[in-house]
C-alpha cells in the first residue's frame, strides 16, 4: 500500500504464481519449436531462428488471450481471483516474450541492410488497397509500443504518480494492442500458413475474449435495484446482500457506489473504486471488519472510507438513512475519508414497526 515502494512485494502466492507461469511459458515455447521442427523433415524445416521467432510470437498471443480472460473470469467467479492477483507479472512476462519476438523480427528481417531497421518497418512496399498486400509489421510495432507503455508503468509507483484514473485509462489500451495483434497476425504470418486452421484460432480468440467480456458485463452488471428520490435513491431488498459482502450500485454520471452489510447487519456505502488500481470494491468482501478489494487486497474502513493506519488511501463515502423501512442512499459523494454513521437496518425496521 502506501508505506513505500519496493520492486516486488514478494510473498509465497506470488512466487508460486510466477513459477507456474514461467513453466507454462517455457513448455509452450518448447512444444511450439519441437512440433514445428518435427512436422516436416529436418532438411525442409524452417531455420532455427525462424522457429524461435514464431514460437515467441505464438506464445505471446496465447498469453495475451489468458491475460485478457482473467478479468472477466474473476468477475464471473471469485475462484479465479488468485489469477488476477498477480496478473501484472503475467503482463510483464508477456511483454518480455513479445519484445524478444519484436527485436528478433526487427533485426532478422529488417536489419543488416542499407536502411536502418525502424525505417524499413515503416517504409516497406505494400498497399492499403488489398488485404493480401497490407503491410503488417507496423501494426505489430505499434502494439509493442502499447505493451511497452503498459509494462513500464505497471508498478504501483507509476499508478501513484500518474493517478489511478489516468493509469487505468492507459492500461485499457491493452484492447487496442489486442486488436492490433489480431490484425498483425491476420495480415501477416497467417497469410503464409499452408493451412487455414490457424486462421480459426483468431476467430476462437475473438469468441473467447469477446464472449467472456460480454458475459461478465451482463452477469456482473451493477445492481440497478433502486428507485430515484432526488439526491436519495432507494436500495431495494438490502437484506438480500450477504453479510460481509458488497453490492455495486450504479449512480448516473458518477463513480459507482459499493454498499456493504456487516456481520452486525449494519450498512455503509463507499466509492466502488479502489485507490490502488481502480478495482471494484463492491465485488470484494469484508475481512477483519475491513472492506477488502478483490484485486490486490487493499483495505478500507467502512466507517470512513480510510485505509487502516499506517496506510493512507481514502475513498469517498456516502450517507445512508432509513425511511419508512426503506434503505436510502444519498448519491452525493462525501470527501474521501469522511466518517458518517453506519445504518443498522434491523433497528430502524423495529423502530418503524
Amino acid at each position: 500500500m502506501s508505506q513505500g515502494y519496493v520492486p516486488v512485494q514478494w510473498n509465497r502466492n506470488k512466487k508460486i504464481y510466477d513459477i507456474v507461469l514461467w513453466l507454462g511459458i517455457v513448455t509452450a515455447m518448447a512444444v511450439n519449436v519441437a512440433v514445428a521442427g518435427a512436422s516436416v523433415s529436418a532438411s525442409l524445416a524452417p531455420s532455427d531462428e525462424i522457429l524461435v521467432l514464431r514460437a515467441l510470437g505464438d506464445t505471446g498471443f496465447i498469453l495475451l488471450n489468458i491475460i485478457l480472460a482473467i478479468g472477466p473470469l474473476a468477475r464471473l467467479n471469485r475462484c479465479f481471483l488468485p489469477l488476477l492477483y498477480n496478473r501484472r507479472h503475467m503482463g510483464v512476462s508477456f511483454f518480455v516474450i513479445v519484445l524478444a519476438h519484436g527485436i528478433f523480427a526487427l533485426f532478422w528481417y529488417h536489419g543488416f541492410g542499407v536502411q536502418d531497421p525502424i525505417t524499413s518497418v515503416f517504409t516497406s512496399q505494400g498497399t492499403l488497397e488489398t488485404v493480401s498486400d497490407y503491410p503488417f509489421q507496423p501494426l505489430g510495432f505499434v502494439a509493442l509500443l502499447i505493451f511497452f507503455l503498459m509494462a513500464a508503468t505497471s508498478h504501483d509507483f507509476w499508478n501513484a504518480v500518474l493517478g489511478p484514473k489516468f493509469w487505468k485509462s492507459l492500461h485499457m489500451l491493452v484492447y487496442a494492442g489486442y486488436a492490433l495483434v489480431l490484425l498483425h497476425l491476420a495480415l501477416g504470418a497467417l497469410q503464409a500458413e499452408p493451412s487455414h486452421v490457424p486462421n480459426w484460432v483468431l476467430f476462437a480468440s475473438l469468441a473467447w475474449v469477446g464472449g467472456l467480456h460480454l458475459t461478465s458485463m451482463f452477469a456482473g452488471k451493477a445492481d440497478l435495484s433502486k428507485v430515484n428520490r432526488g439526491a436519495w435513491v432507494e436500495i431495494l431488498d438490502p437484506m438480500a446482500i450477504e453479510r460481509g459482502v458488497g453490492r455495486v450500485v450504479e449512480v448516473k454520471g458518477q463513480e459507482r457506489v459499493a454498499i456493504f452489510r456487516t456481520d452486525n447487519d449494519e450498512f455503509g456505502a463507499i466509492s466502488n473504486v479502489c485507490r490502488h488500481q481502480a478495482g471494484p470494491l463492491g465485488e470484494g468482501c469484508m475481512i477483519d471488519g475491513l472492506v477488502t478489494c478483490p484485486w490486490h487486497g487493499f483495505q478500507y474502513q467502512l466507517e470512513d472510507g480510510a485505509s487502516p493506519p499506517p496506510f493512507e488511501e481514502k475513498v469517498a463515502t456516502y450517507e445512508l438513512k432509513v425511511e419508512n423501512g426503506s434503505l436510502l442512499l444519498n448519491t452525493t459523494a462525501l470527501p474521501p475519508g469522511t466518517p458518517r454513521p453506519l445504518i443498522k437496518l434491523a433497528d430502524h425496521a423495529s423502530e418503524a414497526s
Partner: protein
Amino acid sequence: MKTPFFVGYLPFPKTLKPFFQWAVPLLLLAGLATAYVFAINTERTGTGTWNAYDPVSITGVVKAKPYPMIITIDRANHPVLIVQLGKLDATEILAPLDGKTVSIEGFMIERGPWQMMEIEGPYSVAEAPTLDLAPPTESAGMFVSLVGEIVDSKCMLGVMKPGAGKVHRECAELCVMGGMPPMLLVKNDAGEKAAYLLVDQQGNAVGRRLIPYIALPVAVEGFAFRMGDMTAIRIDLAMVQELRGSAKVAFGESIGLAGTSSFCRIPS
C-alpha cells in the same frame, strides 16, 4: 459466504485448492494445444543450406557482371555467386577484379544446383595464380511469359528458411536494395520449382527497379537464356505485372534447372 475469497498476502484458502488443481492444468493444456495448432502446420521451406560456421576457400576467375560470381574448375558452367555478409552485394569488391583469378574465402549457401558464397569483406579475397577459365557461354534467348515470385537469391538459396512469401518481403526488399541478385521462382503443375536469375534487357543487373514487385505473385515477360548451366531471363521491366487476387505463390523443395523440365525449353 459461498465462494472463498482470495487475498494475495494471506495464506491460499484451502477450499480453493481443488478448483485450482483442475483449472490451472486445464488452462495450461489449452495454451499448449494452441501452441500445437500453430506449430503443426509448419510449411516446407526447401532444402537450402547456409554453412555459416565453417568457412571454405575456393579459387577461380571473377565474372563481375551481371552479378559477381566465381568460375571455378569444378563449376565452369555454373559459377558460384558471391555476396557479402548481411544484405549487401560484393560488386564493389569484385568489379575491380573482373577477369582476374582470385582465392576467396567465405561461407557456402546452397540449394539445388545453385551455389553462393558469403564473404566477410575485401580481406576475404586475394589474387591467385592465373587459371585459364572462360566465362560460361550465353545461349540465344527465347521469349517467355512466366508467373512466379521475385525473391532475393541469398535468402531463398538458404540463409532464410523460408526466404520467400509475404512475411519475408521486407527482408527481400532490403537484400535487393543492397544489390543482391534477384531471382524469379516458378512452379509448374507437377510441383517442380525452378529459379531464374533476373537481368535487364541489356543483360545488366536490374538493381532496385524490381523492388515494387518483390515477394508478390507476378507475371514476367522476357527472353530466357542460359549462361552455361545457369538460367536467366532478360526481363522487360515495363511488362512486370503484379497478379491481383492471388493469395501467394508457394515454393519449397528443389529448384532444378529450368529449361530441362516443362517450364520452358531454353536452347542450350
